[in-house]
């Protein structure tokens, strides 16, 4: 038996180990560890949480089914209004990121020769710690913060400091800022797919720049806007830090109440109910927008292909 045969034998056994075999419904065995994390850890987390919403104490072995906590939610105007307030803040944030982000997205997609550099500049702040970023907004919005310094001391426009902190608007500002990239990137991606000859054609046919934008560019970025809006809405509706640090006690959002229910000595069952109801709202939104297919991380890669 020569060495080549040994080598071939090793090859065969390795093929069976790593060579992209499928197993049951899993197309490739190498997906198993990752899928285990998704199914066991993520799935297990969601499942145990959902169990808590309608069972007395599943961890302690008490599986008695009760809908008392769902009834409590349905009968509580406080928690229903918290849910609605959170959605209102999320809508304001989504509109805010769209209004602030669209012009920059347009500039990056249409005019800039340094598109990749600018995209990096827009995306980079995503990676900065969110506690620090929210803290930065406290420095800006405080009674003795940057905004009031500029308005009072520098420009002398005001005698009294503006009350910016601990308002719903502070929460919206503190959310628009970190979520801008999530709106800008999908819009840029959708703009890069536009055939710019169409815009030229519209202008040649007598349309002004604004008309060409409104009739040709804007409709073709709908998919990007929808994707960006979905990202921003989901992320902002579940905000935890901004409402606590910038909104003060009067502007707590749903995530704060969910978190509160899971802190020491609180009501896990009711917290789970809030989490389930909130998730249901988000899922309904996803279904309504019908975006499930577009919401992937791969958006940026397809963008590079287009260049």
């Amino acid at each position, binding site marked *: 038996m020569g060495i080549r045969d040994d080598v071939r034998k090793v090859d065969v056994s390795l093929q069976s180990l790593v060579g992209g075999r499928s197993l049951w419904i899993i197309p490739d065995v190498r997906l198993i560890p990752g899928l285990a994390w998704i199914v066991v850890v*993520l799935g297990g987390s969601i499942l145990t949480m959902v169990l808590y919403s309608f069972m007395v104490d599943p961890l302690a072995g008490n599986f008695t089914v009760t809908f008392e906590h769902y009834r409590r939610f349905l009968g509580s105007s406080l928690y229903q209004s918290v849910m609605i307030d959170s959605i209102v803040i999320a809508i304001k944030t989504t509109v805010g990121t769209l209004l602030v982000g669209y012009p920059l997205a347009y500039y990056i997609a249409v005019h800039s020769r340094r598109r990749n550099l600018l995209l990096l500049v827009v995306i980079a702040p995503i990676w900065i710690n969110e506690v620090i970023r929210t803290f930065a907004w406290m420095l800006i919005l405080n009674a003795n913060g940057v905004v009031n310094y500029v308005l009072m001391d520098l420009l002398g426009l005001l005698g009294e400091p503006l009350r910016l902190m601990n308002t719903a608007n502070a929460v919206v500002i503190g959310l628009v800022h970190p979520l801008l990239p999530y709106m800008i990137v999908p819009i840029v991606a959708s703009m890069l797919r536009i055939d710019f000859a169409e815009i030229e054609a519209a202008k040649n046919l007598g349309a002004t720049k604004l008309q060409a934008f409104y009739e040709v560019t804007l409709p073709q970025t709908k998919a990007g806007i929808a994707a960006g809006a979905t990202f921003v809405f989901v992320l902002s509706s579940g905000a935890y830090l901004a409402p606590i640090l910038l909104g003060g006690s009067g502007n707590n959002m749903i995530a704060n109440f969910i978190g509160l229910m899971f802190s020491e000595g609180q009501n896990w069952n009711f917290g789970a109910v809030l*989490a389930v109801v909130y998730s249901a709202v988000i899922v309904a939104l996803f279904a309504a927008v019908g975006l499930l297919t577009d919401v992937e991380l791969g958006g940026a890669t397809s963008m590079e292909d287009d260049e």
Partner: protein
Amino acid sequence: MITFSALLGKVDISNRNANRLQKLTAGTVIAFLYLPILIVIMLSFTPEKNPAFPMPGISFKWYRALVEDDAFVNAIWFSAKLAVATAFASGFVGMLAGFGLDRGDFTGTPLDERKLRILFSLPIIIPFIITGIGGLVFFNFLNIYGSFPALVIGHIMITLPFTTLVIASGLNGLDESVEEAAKNLGATQLRAYYEVTLPMIMPSVVAAMLFAFILSFNNFIQTFFWLSFADQTLPVLIYGLVRLTYDPTLNAVGTVLIVFSLALTITAERISSRLLT
């Protein structure tokens, strides 16, 4: 009845003014993105206890206060340990999954590539508060709540979408014919792997691990719910201090975090030469 479009037709802007306006708005938005970060960096050098403008001078005393504060040093150490463990574990699991996603044979399986990509994106699509408290209940169920392994398991879940998809897209850009050539020249599957495929995707793997490191190091929401009272990660410690009172040391630690995060992720982006959303 005049339509909105027709109304827009009445306004015509010269090319020069349109360009100016677009540049101005783009510049303003970028300033808005970076202004808060710059303010933290600026205030980290103020000699005053309270934020005062204009700054009366330059001082490094808050950086000294930072390195002399045991609470900060311990939290940084704990966060670093957690992030390194997460980067290696998530990098490994993500590399396997990335291979499966890019090289798997999806003919006739109910789990096609699109579904798998959505599955692997779930940990970042699902709101963080849900995975946060879900993990809290699940780790209690497993009786590992608050332990270091539980934190690593959770952080692998949070970072897996990034490691998997970065490595899968790295493999996607790889020329498979090189690997085929190695095999045709007599290399075994294993040798082709180690000597051809792995070196070629190493940049993606390193980039994926850097992303995982920074995500784990900076994670707040989930870690906040998964952490035992005995331990503190840096973001959780900072959160506690921010809620209490204004402490200028926070600007110093914030500046360190900002510079560190940007340096690491820009390096990772350079290495993988792919933009991440």
